[in-house]
């Protein structure tokens, strides 16, 4: 009777297939057709190049604060690749590559970061939530979507993204607990990029892994090499399949690294050593996957250029966006505009129309205009 050890005992698995030295565990390699491998690679390249372009746009004052994904392309693409279009994708604020894969036009993403509410509008047939800024708050939404799908009898899985820092929030806990009790089809993807702005993982939690947090909810949890797109894909596919099969939620920890700034308002030299970044640069998910494709002779010429052209096209469309109509701020507060908003709208319309000393109020900055050194002004 005394000091019994309770069964079951627990452990957490770690999955890696293609390591940073280029070693491949062929027994675990997913059987992906060449087209898929190429598509994966292209999406990762797109994520990387768009990132670079957006940082430049921000520096030029053409968009506002933006959170780059550099280094996390494998975590994002390996996981989202396991979804069907009828499944749901719930992003945080750092899933540009995955969002584009899901069908978000690049110019919408640019609009979003240029302060246009239009950038948050998913297409009518798209099963995607828009970006959520408050850390971790999107996780209960994912659980609710999954519950609703199950309630309606729809065969849809929900994949929700968040960072290592998000695991400290109450909403993370409550969402995983509800998911466990309700046994709903959700796959929780934690991109553990080691940092929450300036706070390293060891100041974020005393648990050794994020994956083991699943044990608190009686859920399966797995840690994967998040810079190995094949490992991420395999873990995600398994979780998605289990979810489709009615076997409930899974927590996947992708061990990765944010190679760039937290956002364009951040200066990481204040809090982390260049050596640490350099060490992770050796594990770059793109380099690794590129070498793998090269070995398989699947590397196409000109991917980078074609991606850059696609981005340039999108930037052109973005810059052609007409100035934001201020009156639109009243449109989506309620389904029907209540009297006080109608009155406020009329006031503003009259104000704009009659041009009486409208001042800056009536002349919202169009994107691209009045470039400013965004960095300092935006966050400092």
């Amino acid at each position, binding site marked *: 009777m005394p000091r019994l050890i309770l069964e079951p005992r627990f452990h957490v698995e770690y999955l890696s297939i293609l390591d940073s030295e280029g070693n491949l565990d062929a027994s675990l390699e997913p059987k992906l057709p060449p087209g898929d491998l190429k598509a994966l690679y292209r999406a990762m390249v797109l994520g990387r190049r768009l990132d670079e372009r957006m940082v430049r746009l921000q520096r030029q004052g053409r968009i506002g604060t933006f959170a780059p994904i550099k280094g996390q392309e494998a975590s994002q693409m390996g996981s989202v690749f396991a979804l069907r279009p009828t499944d749901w994708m719930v992003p945080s604020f750092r899933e540009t590559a995955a969002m584009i894969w899901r069908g978000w036009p690049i110019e919408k993403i640019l609009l979003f970061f240029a302060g246009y509410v239009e950038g948050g509008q*998913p297409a009518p047939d798209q099963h995607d939530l828009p970006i959520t800024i408050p850390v971790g708050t999107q996780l*209960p*939404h994912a659980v*609710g979507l999954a519950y609703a799908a199950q309630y309606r009898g729809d065969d849809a899985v929900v994949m929700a993204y968040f960072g290592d820092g998000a695991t400290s929030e109450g909403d993370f806990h*409550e969402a995983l607990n509800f998911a466990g009790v309700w046994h709903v089809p959700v796959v929780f993807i934690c991109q553990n990029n080691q940092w929450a702005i300036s706070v390293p993982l060891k100041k974020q939690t005393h648990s050794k892994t994020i994956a083991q947090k699943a044990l608190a909810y009686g859920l399966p949890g797995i840690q994967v090499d998040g810079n190995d797109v094949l490992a991420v894909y395999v873990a995600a596919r398994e979780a998605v399949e289990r979810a489709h099969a009615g076997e409930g939620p899974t927590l996947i920890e992708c061990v990765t690294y944010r190679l760039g700034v937290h956002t364009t308002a951040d200066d990481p030299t204040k809090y982390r050593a260049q050596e640490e970044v350099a060490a992770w640069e050796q594990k770059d998910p793109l380099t690794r996957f590129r070498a793998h494709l090269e070995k398989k002779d699947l590397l196409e010429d000109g991917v980078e250029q074609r991606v850059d052209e696609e981005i340039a096209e999108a930037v052109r469309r973005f810059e052609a966006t007409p100035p934001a109509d201020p009156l639109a701020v009243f449109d*989506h507060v309620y389904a029907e505009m209540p*009297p006080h908003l109608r009155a406020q709208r009329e006031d503003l319309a009259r104000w704009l129309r009659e041009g009486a000393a409208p001042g800056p109020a009536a002349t919202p900055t169009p994107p691209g205009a009045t470039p400013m050194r965004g960095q300092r002004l935006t966050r400092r």
Partner: protein
Amino acid sequence: MVKALNLALLQEMERDPDVLILGEDVGVDGGVFRVTDDLQRKFGSQRVIDSPLAEAAIIGTAVGMALYGLKPVCEIQFSGFAFQCFHQIENHAARYRMRSQGRFHCQMVIRMPYGGGVRALEHHTESEEQFYAHVPGLKMVIPSGPRTARALLTSAIRDPDPVIFFESKALYHAAKEEIPEESESFPIGRAQVVREGRDLTLVAYGAMLRVAREAADVLQAEDGVETDVVDLLTIAPLDRETIVTSVGKTGRAVVIHEAPKSFGPGAEIAASIMEGTFLHLEAPVRRVTAHDVSFVGFAREKANVPDVARVVAAARETLAF
């Protein structure tokens, strides 16, 4: 009033399979006030969900359900525990329509018992409507009796926008009223003039409506004063037209609520009256409210919450101004 609310839920659930109920103890127990009594037996535990004890996840998952197209009716056990989910309400329920530019919206109702009068502990007696009224994108409704409760809960469930629905604990059992069998709704955003007079306007809602009506009786009987009594029903969006029309006629107003005075709902009502009918105002708008104090304990509750005598006294001062 409990039965009236239960009836509204029952009829809406029968009418629309997308309506479901979610909250702590709402299922087997039928809610700690029995508002959801027997619904789980009728509709099953997938549709009337006994959730774990976590307000933020109740609202957060309901937001997810609403984004999918369901119409969750959430119960927060007491309004004093709703600040646990205030971020989900303000950050998400209220904003998803704007954020997604109409692609998504949150058709959901958040019911909670509010207010004093039942000898209850801390966090079980407060009146927090102001916090919701100030959030764009939300609607804030407080019925004053069984019939308005049933009609407005029906409207709230059908309303495409998120509705915060406060139910006065003092009215749950005290208030009795005949209500029609047939489903009945009442437009959200519309106040009701429940008594007409030309000398003074009393503006109240929820449990305070009774106080206003009785004060009007006293004023009529003892002072021969004729009073317009406005039952707000919807706090936000505020029906300024009805209020201003009344005060435009009477020239004098007293606003009554259980919430603390400073930065409370009475301030908006007073300011709106001033803006809407300044030149007809014969006296400053008076506010009869709870004091600006934290929890007082039920041994002192009656000294804190407006009652008929205080309203009558305020009305007399306003009339004498």
